């Protein structure tokens, strides 16, 4: 069955080929016909020059690109980049460069680097950024514009001041001085690190010796009640407090 189908298709194909060849042959023998326009002569028309000139003068028909004048700022940058290029270009100069040529070139480069560095520094400074902090591993913390007179326990004449306070009957102030004196003793003995920002609680925790810590905690409590709590004390109460401070100082020494 398939064989017959191929056969029919083959015969039809041959037939189509012959048909196409016959048509091409017939076309070769047809005569060419040239058609000629036999109408009247062509009337050549021209544009009106005056109208054209009028149009040319109108801004709508001005197609020339406007070129802006180069500003001073642009000229400056052109000069700058040209100068920068001349500094770093490796074009060979006429003849061999002298020592002064090389020196002058290096000097100009250093001057430029210094100028750029100074500019960056002032920008950072104006922004309030610590430029040195950028190269550090960790930020050192915010600078605090705060200053005031700090009381230094190392410069106070405790014995004289305490005597003066007792003489005036100002036992509250005397207890304060006793406490500051005690802090000085502990600092001198290397048992605490005296700093303006440390609270009494911090000093208590700095004492490693349990017995000393407990004794100092009691003294701190006495001081706090009298000083911060404004608890009024008489001579008798002061004597008790004074002796407890003296005992502690002896212990520390």
């Amino acid at each position: 069955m398939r064989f017959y189908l191929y056969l029919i298709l083959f015969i039809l194909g041959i037939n189509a080929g012959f048909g196409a060849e016959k048509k091409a042959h017939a076309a070769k023998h047809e005569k060419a016909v040239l058609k000629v326009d036999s109408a009247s002569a062509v009337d050549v028309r021209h544009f009106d020059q005056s109208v054209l000139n009028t149009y040319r003068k109108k801004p709508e028909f001005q197609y020339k690109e406007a070129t802006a004048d180069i500003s001073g700022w642009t000229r400056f940058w052109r000069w700058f980049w040209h100068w920068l290029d001349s500094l770093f270009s490796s074009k060979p100069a006429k003849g061999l460069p002298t020592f002064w040529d090389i020196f002058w070139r290096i000097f100009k480069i250093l001057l430029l680097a210094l100028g750029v560095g100074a500019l960056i520094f002032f920008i950072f400074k104006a922004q309030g950024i610590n430029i040195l902090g950028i190269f550090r591993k960790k930020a050192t913390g915010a600078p605090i514009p705060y200053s005031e007179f700090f009381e230094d326990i190392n410069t106070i004449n405790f014995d004289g001041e305490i005597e003066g306070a007792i003489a005036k009957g100002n036992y509250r102030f005397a207890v304060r001085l006793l406490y500051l004196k005690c802090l000085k003793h502990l600092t001198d003995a290397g048992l605490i690190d005296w700093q303006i920002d440390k609270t009494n609680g911090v000093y208590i925790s700095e004492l490693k010796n349990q017995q000393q810590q407990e004794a100092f905690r009691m003294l701190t409590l006495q001081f706090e009640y009298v000083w911060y709590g404004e608890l009024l004390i008489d001579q008798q109460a002061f004597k008790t407090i004074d002796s407890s401070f003296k005992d502690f100082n002896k212990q520390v020494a």
Partner: protein
Amino acid sequence: MEEGIFEQRTDLGKLNAAVNQIKATLGTIIVGQQDSIDLLIAGILADGHVLIEGVPGVAKTLTAKLIAKAIDAQYSRIQFTPDLMPSDVLGTSVFNPKTIDFEFKQGPIFGNIILIDEINRAPAKTQSALFEVMEERQVTIDGHNYKMQEPFIVLATQNPVEQEGTYRLPEAQLDRFLFKIEIKYPSLEEEIRIVTQQHQHKTNDQLAEVKPILSKEDIISLRNQVRGFHVEPKILEFVAKVIHETRNNKSLYLGGSPRASLAVVNAAKALAAIKGRDFVTPDDVVWVAPAVLRHRIMLTPDKEMEGVSPDDIIKQIIQKIEVPR
């Protein structure tokens, strides 16, 4: 509590007993978090609202609920959600056909102890509804003022803003919170205790075990007592210097307000009361300062990017100011 070496001007017996009882009760359920519990008690004594922040699962809500249960007062809880409306919190006027008039229906904010869970899940519109009630203890609706009952305490919990679905609270609202308590993850030892404790109490409802310790009247009376505590003028100066410095510090975009100064003093007084004193020491101020200030100050963007925390800046500020002595 500190030793009674001097005779107290104020009788703090009842206060100390109550504080110890609250701490003991909470200590049986909450593991660790001693500082947070002290701050919560201080907040109640100082007549302040407390914001508790922590990642999910660190017992923020449980702590707040326990404190609320320890006080015999009207307690209400509001779960803040993104679609919550101001009227859902404050209340609204409803038409009553019987009386042919509008009647005000109070919202859950009308209570003594209000637990606002996940406060930063509601948008700014709903947060704004809390401004008046938190500061002035009153609600104005349809031209009528509704006063809150005393005591009025808002205990709010929130997830850190980095968490999904949270909003940053407005600065004006944050300023109304006395403390922001940050609850961290427990240590390994604490974690073991939590698991063991939970295992042993698995059949009991722990909250049901908590009985009220303080009444409304007790709280009002204790607050009046604490308000009258002595503060040395030099300590007041110290507080003012700390707050003033937050306004001039280059690391801070927003410093503490005068309300912050008052908050530090009140909080320090409350802490002194917890420690059994009727006067404030610099230690009290230094201890409460981070909790009072950390949510009121705002870091500059560059400091935030450096990973500096508000607590770091507060510490730096305090370190530069001489402790009055």
